[in-house]
C-alpha cells in the first residue's frame, strides 16, 4: 500500500501576528513545526504501512526551509519525501497550492491513498485536502477518526460528525483528512533522526512537475484577502449539566436574575 502524506510547515505558535499592510502572516522569528494535525496523518500512514506493507511518501510545498518539516517526517519513519519549492509557487492561495500539489502527486504516480491533517493551524482553511482530491478526480472524505479496514481496493472509515460518526466505504485511491482522535502520534526514533540529519532534499520545481505557470502562485490564486480581523469575542458562556428538569430550572432562574423574563 503506497501512501502519500501531505504535510505543511507552520509557525509554532497559536498567536500568529498579521502584517496589517499585506494581510499575510508574519513568520519571521517564529520557530517552525509540522502542522500538528499532519502528525496524525503521518502516524496513520506509518501504521497502515506496518499492517499492509508498502511505502510512505511525505509531500510538502513551501520555501527551501520547509525541507526541515520533511526531515522531521523522515525521523518519524516515512520512506521518501518530496519538496515542491520554486519562486513560481510563491503567494499561492489554497487553490493554486492544491494545483501544484496535485501535479506533484501526478509525478509521484503510484499511490493508493493520500492522507492530510484536517486543517493547518496557521490558515485554518481545511481546503487543500478536498481541492487536491478534486483536481486529481479522486473521492474525498474529511474528518476521519478511524480507518476500519482496507481490502480489495476499498476502505471503510469512520467520519467524525458533530453528533456521533458516519461509517463510509470508499474506493481506492482516495484522499482523506484526519482528526486528532484517530491515533496518538509517535515520537521520532534515534535511527530516524540520524537518517534525517544526513538527508539532502532536492526540491521539485514548477518545470519538474510540468505545471502550467499561469495556475501557480499569486497569478493562479483567485482568493483576495480584503481584510483580516479577529472575530468579536463571544459573551461569557456557562455549560449546564445534570437532569434536564434541573437544567431548565437553572436557566429560568438565571434569566429571571437578569430580568430577561
Amino acid at each position: 500500500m503506497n501512501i502519500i502524506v501531505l504535510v505543511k510547515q507552520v509557525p509554532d505558535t497559536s498567536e500568529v501576528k498579521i502584517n496589517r499592510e499585506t494581510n499575510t502572516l508574519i513568520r519571521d522569528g517564529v520557530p517552525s513545526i509540522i502542522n500538528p494535525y499532519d502528525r496524525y496523518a503521518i502516524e496513520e500512514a506509518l501504521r497502515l504501512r506496518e499492517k499492509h506493507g508498502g511505502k510512505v511518501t511525505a509531500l510538502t510545498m513551501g520555501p527551501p526551509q520547509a525541507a526541515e518539516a520533511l526531515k522531521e517526517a523522515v525521523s518519524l519513519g516515512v520512506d521518501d519525501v518530496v519538496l515542491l519549492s520554486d519562486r513560481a509557487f510563491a503567494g499561492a492561495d489554497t487553490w493554486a497550492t492544491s494545483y501544484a500539489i496535485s501535479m506533484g502527486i501526478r509525478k509521484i504516480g503510484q499511490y493508493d491513498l493520500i492522507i492530510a491533517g484536517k486543517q493547518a493551524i496557521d490558515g485554518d482553511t481545511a481546503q487543500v485536502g478536498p481541492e487536491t482530491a478534486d483536481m486529481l478526480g479522486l473521492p474525498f472524505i474529511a474528518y476521519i477518526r478511524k480507518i476500519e479496514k482496507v481490502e480489495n481496493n476499498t476502505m471503510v472509515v469512520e467520519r467524525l460528525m458533530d453528533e456521533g460518526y458516519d461509517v463510509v466505504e470508499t474506493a481506492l485511491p482516495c484522499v482523506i483528512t484526519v482528526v486528532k482522535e484517530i491515533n496518538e502520534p509517535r515520537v521520532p526514533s534515534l535511527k530516524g533522526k540520524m537518517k534525517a540529519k544526513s538527508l539532502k532534499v532536492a526540491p521539485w520545481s514548477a518545470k519538474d512537475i510540468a505545471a502550467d505557470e499561469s495556475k501557480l502562485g499569486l497569478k493562479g490564486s483567485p482568493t483576495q484577502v480584503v481584510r483580516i480581523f479577529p472575530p468579536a469575542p463571544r459573551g461569557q458562556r456557562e455549560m449546564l449539566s445534570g437532569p434536564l428538569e434541573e437544567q431548565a430550572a437553572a436557566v429560568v432562574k438565571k434569566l429571571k436574575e437578569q430580568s430577561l423574563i
Partner: protein
Amino acid sequence: MDYILTEEQLMIRDLARQIAVEKIVPVRAELDEHNKFPTDVMKAIAQADLLGLYIPEQYGGLGKGSLDFYIAIEELSKACLGVSTTYAANALGTYPLLLFGTDEQKKKYLPDIASGKKYVAFGLTEANAGSDASGIQTTARLEGNEYVLNGTKQWITNGGEADVYTVIAITDKSKGPRGASAFVVDKGTPGFTFGKKENKMGIRASSTTELIFNNCRIPKDNIIAKQGMGFIVAMKTLDSSRAGVGSQGVGVAQGAIDEAIKFARGRVQFGQPVTSFQAIQHMLADMQTQTEAARALVYSVARMIDSGAKDFSRASAMAKLFATDVAMKVTTDAVQVMGGSGYMKEYPVEKMMRDAKILQIYEGTNQIQRTVIGLDMIKEASKAK
C-alpha cells in the same frame, strides 16, 4: 553550563526530552497514584530506539557509550523517576549478559532487549542480602544438564514485567564469595513465580516484586560466565550501572528546580513575586549550583568509563553518592520554595521528593558507597608508599 556534547548526544537529549514532555508528563501523576507500570511509555521509549542505546550494533543496538545513555536517563528522570527506574533497571539486568555473556547468549537475548520486545530485571537482593551481598541464600544445584534454583529474591525492579532475569545464586556454599554464580532465567520457566507487588513510597510507576524459585530447572548453558564468578559479575554490573543512578539524581533535581522556579515567578506575596526575595534567590542558586556540580561529576565519570578505564568503582560510587544526596536535598528544597503548594499533589515536586529518596538507598546505599570510596582511598595510599 555547556558540556560540549556531540551532535548525536544533543539528538539523544532532545529525543528523550520529547518523550518526557509528550508521553510521560501527562500520565506521571496517574501512574504514581495507581502504582501503574508505564507500558505505553516504555513502548514509546523502545520505538525511539532508546532501549538499544548501550547495546552493540552487532546485536541490534546503537553501540553508544555511558554518557549517551546517562543523558537519556537524566531527561527521563526530569519527568518521572518511576519511568527512569524502569528504564535504567532494564540496563542493570542486561549488563551481566553484555559484560560476561557468551556470543550465543548475546545473540539470543540482546536483539530482543534492544528492540524492546523483551524487558530485563536483575535479581541480587534477598531478605538477608542487600548491602551485604554475601548473605545470599538462593541456591543453584547442578543436576545433569540442568541447574535447579531454589530461594527468593526481594525488591526486584521490573519483577513480573520483565521477560528475562539475570540472577545471582549460590552454587557452592563452602567457597564463600567464590561460591556464587550468575544465571539467566526466562519468565515462564516452571518453578519460577513472582511474589506480591510492593507498595512503595515513591517510584510507584516501577514494578517491584519478589522472584520465587521453587525447584526451577534451567539449562546448564544459562550460566553467565563461569561457575563461581557470580560476585564478580554482580560487582562489575553494579560498577557499570552506579553512575547511571547519579544521572537519575541530576535529572530529578533539575526537574524539581524547573518546577520551583516556574512556580516562584508567578507566586506573589507582599505585593511582589517571591523570586524578588533574597531568601528564594539564594535557595534557587544553591539548588542549581549543587545540581550543576553533580552533573559535572556524573558526566566526567561517564567520559572516564567511555575512554576505556578499567577500574572505575570509586569514581562511579562518588557520582552516585554525590548526585543522589544532591537530589534528595534539592527536591526537598523545591517543596520548600513552593511552600504549601509544593506539598500538594496538584504539583509534581512532592512526588519528586518521595521518588528521590530511593536513589540514596538502591544499587548500594550511600553509606556503602562511602565505604567503597574510603576503602579504595586507603588501598591506594597503602600502595603508594
